[in-house]
């Protein structure tokens, strides 16, 4: 009877456990979705104060062209095959894939209010003044929305993976260790590709991990990798690294179990998905390539290989040709990511490697083409390490062009966040009992520096630095980049005098100014003008731009700024006015 009771009790417990699992999974998904939506909402509202940065202006214009083409094709499907029309639309900014720009343009067609003012002709279909289907936000905000949704998706993914690994605190730690970083928060709200490709890369790797032992995930891997490649070229590295991981694990297994490699493992479904299906999906999502796929793809790679060098201030020196110091991405990561997060992530990466299951330790099972690695994926710790470190190594490579600042290795940060969750998991299971009760507080404390930096730095988080560097002030003393891109422009534009006149934009792109005009941020009556014909001049201080400020002094006849926009007393933007 006892045994029956035990069995019954056991069966009842098992049944309860089984019922609890779907409920906890549902709860996890619910919390993840809520966090994701909250992130998107905060970005959408908060980034109204963030000026349109340099590259965004070009992407806004491209988005309008791409969306106009889509509307054209919807109206007349035969135009899909009209090469000239298609190329004319997608020629704008063809050095980056089209996916995000398409999404942004369509988002504007759905949600944008009519432009308030514009300098360009508004009678063409590209720059039309008709409102969106549900006009609830300015055009620029509507175009930023897809990237903000993807950032929210990234937060949701990180929470979901972290919570599945080690509970809700791990999930919050993973999500917070990514999105609460000042630079991530800043870029997450822009109509740019850096955070979207970081999230897409995360999605690709998570799907790949699962695909090694799950046929369903393997079938999804193709579309997911295609979406990632169609977001930004960084995903091409991710595909190559995943393939390298697979074959390295396979080679290791062959080394330890001679003859234990099945032919079906040599080119299994995950690899086909990454290398064949993914590129085909990305091709389908980039109409510019349709006319001449090989030639145009080669041009795309060549553009980035021979990228112009940007100016980077680092430790008081200005670099505009390679090599950057090898230390640059590592020091700048420390300078912009709080050390508590880095410490936790480092611990998580080490733990991940120590816990790695060797591909040689599993019993040799007959592999299937759609499921090459039995019931678990090997070397996941190493995989996370590679993705956390590789983007920094690329930027540190001496022959790499100087692409710019911290955004170029944001793809590493989701994996640092995953490592934070892994560290938490290890602490929770290994720390002495008397310490475990304090772990949630420790986790919260490790997120406070990031949250503080980001909340305080908003909307100027492109100029924000971690506490131990001294924030913006410390970074200015150390001679690091101030802002880049003319981002800190909204307060300067809003303070322009009422009398209409010419404004010299300095590093603010004319297309960004155009978008500001369309959205009513640019004051009425003012026009962008060369410095020789301007009455007002904006200046965004960077080391290599000092000569521009002197030109302003000479042309406007004054050395006295009429406005200095600061973050913790450090100038981010200066406005000069011609004296009466």
């Amino acid at each position: 009877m006892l045994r029956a009771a035990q069995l019954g009790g056991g069966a009842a417990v098992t049944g309860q456990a089984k019922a609890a699992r779907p409920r906890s999974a549902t709860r996890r998904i619910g919390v993840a979705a809520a966090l994701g939506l909250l992130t998107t909402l905060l970005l959408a509202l908060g980034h109204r104060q963030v000026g349109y940065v340099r590259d965004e202006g070009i992407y806004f214009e491209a988005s309008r062209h791409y969306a106009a083409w889509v509307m054209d094709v919807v109206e007349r499907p035969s135009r899909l095959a009209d090469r000239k029309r298609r190329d004319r639309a997608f020629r704008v900014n063809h050095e980056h894939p089209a996916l995000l720009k398409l999404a942004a343009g369509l988002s504007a067609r759905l949600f944008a209010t009519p432009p308030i003012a514009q300098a360009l002709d508004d009678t063409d279909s590209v720059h039309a003044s008709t409102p969106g289907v549900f006009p609830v936000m300015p055009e620029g905000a509507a175009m930023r929305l897809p990237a903000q949704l993807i950032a929210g998706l990234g937060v949701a993914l990180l929470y979901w993976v972290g919570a599945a690994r080690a509970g809700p605190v791990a999930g919050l730690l993973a999500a917070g260790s990514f999105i609460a970083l000042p630079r991530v928060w800043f870029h997450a709200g822009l109509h740019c590709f850096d955070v979207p490709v970081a999230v897409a890369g995360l999605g690709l790797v998570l799907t790949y991990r699962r695909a090694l032992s799950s046929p369903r995930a393997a079938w999804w891997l193709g579309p997911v990798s295609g979406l990632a490649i169609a977001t930004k070229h960084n995903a091409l590295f991710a595909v190559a690294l995943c393939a390298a991981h697979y074959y390295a694990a396979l080679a290791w297994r062959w080394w330890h179990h001679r003859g234990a490699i099945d032919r079906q493992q040599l080119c299994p479904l995950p690899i086909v998905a990454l290398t064949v299906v993914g590129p085909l999906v990305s091709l389908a999502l980039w109409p510019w390539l349709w006319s001449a796929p090989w030639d145009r793809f080669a041009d795309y790679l060549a553009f980035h290989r021979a990228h112009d060098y940007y100016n980077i201030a680092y430790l008081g020196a200005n670099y505009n040709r390679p090599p950057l110091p090898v230390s640059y991405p590592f020091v700048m990561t420390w300078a912009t990511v709080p050390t508590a997060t880095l410490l936790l992530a480092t611990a998580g990466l080490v733990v991940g490697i120590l816990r790695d299951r060797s591909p040689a330790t599993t019993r040799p099972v007959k592999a299937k083409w759609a499921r090459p690695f039995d019931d678990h994926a090997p070397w996941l710790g190493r995989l996370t390490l590679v993705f956390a470190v590789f983007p920094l190594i690329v930027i540190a490579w001496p022959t790499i062009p100087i692409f710019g600042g911290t955004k170029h290795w944001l793809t590493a940060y989701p994996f640092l966040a995953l490592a934070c969750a892994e560290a938490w998991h290890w602490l929770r299971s290994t720390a002495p009992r008397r310490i475990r009760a304090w772990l949630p507080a420790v986790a919260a404390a490790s997120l406070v520096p990031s949250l503080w930096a980001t909340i305080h730095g908003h909307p100027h988080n492109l100029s924000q630095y971690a506490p131990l560097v001294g924030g913006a002030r410390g970074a200015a003393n150390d001679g690091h980049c101030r802002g880049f891109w003319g981002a800190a422009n909204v307060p300067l534009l809003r303070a322009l005098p009422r009398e209409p006149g010419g404004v010299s934009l300095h590093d603010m792109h004319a297309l960004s100014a155009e978008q500001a005009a369309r959205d009513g941020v640019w004051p009425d009556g003012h026009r962008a003008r060369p410095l020789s014909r301007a009455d007002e001049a904006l200046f965004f201080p960077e080391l290599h731009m000092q000569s521009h400020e002197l030109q302003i002094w000479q042309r406007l006849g004054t050395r006295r700024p009429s406005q200095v926009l600061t973050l913790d007393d450090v100038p981010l933007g200066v406005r000069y006015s011609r004296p009466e």
Partner: protein
Amino acid sequence: MASRLATWLVVALVVVAGLEILTAARVYGSRISPQDWEGVDNLIDDDMPLWTDPAWLRPAARQHLTAARSDVSVGAPDLMGWPRFRVLSLAGTPAWSATLRRELGDDRVPQVHEEHIVGGLALRTYDRPDVPIRLDDLVAHRRRLSPEAFTSLRQSTCRRHGDGWRCGRKAEPVATVSFRVVEVTFQPRHCLALEFDQPATIELNIADMQLGDSLRGHVGLADFNARLRTDAPTVVRLSVAGDTVMQRNFTDDEGWAAFVVHTVPQVADVRVQIERPDHLTWHRGKARDRPRPVVCFELRSLGEARP
């Protein structure tokens, strides 16, 4: 073992996070108020040079302080030649810095004559009673200067054009010469800016210059892009009373390069020749012609004060 490691990690996290939180409380936030600027402005009522350090504070200093906008404050070649000068810096920072030491040209830290802490700002007046003072300089002779230009083919006169001179014919310009503020090594410098249209030598004859113990000057190439490319050197020759006292090549990676020539106290004619021997620049492995390098040149005589 693992348990101990976990304990150490928790301790490390608490310490690091705690340190970062305390540091964030200290570094995040503005420390300078409009009243601070007003307070500093009220303390300055003369035309002593005002140096602002760190450099990033200068836009705000120029916005609020008249003294920060003067020629001598904005574009001073260095801090030599001033027996007394002011430095505006952040309260709580060291009184002297490597930047100031470079501008001073030597390692001797001057005495603090006066110090005022006004909120987040510190205004210090420094004394250098033992340094030679500025007796004369190129700028003082600007009205009487009459540059001449020499190319391989001909000699050209330089005609007055606004505040400066244009050398060469309209169809074949040689150079534009003017006194203005240019950027050299990311700092504004008030100097004689020589903008060369072709390889040439510009000659300046400074009549009756008051000389002291030394002639001190600087040569620099304006605009960081010009310096990042490998350009031909600038050759500078100095003569005092007909005798050559200096001939030196200045390359574009020397920044704001100082030179000193010892002289005898006297009134004498000083001749300066500034030559750009060719117009080529080397960029990404190729040599090509490049337009209009701008050489920034300044010259002062230093010595004991006259009774």
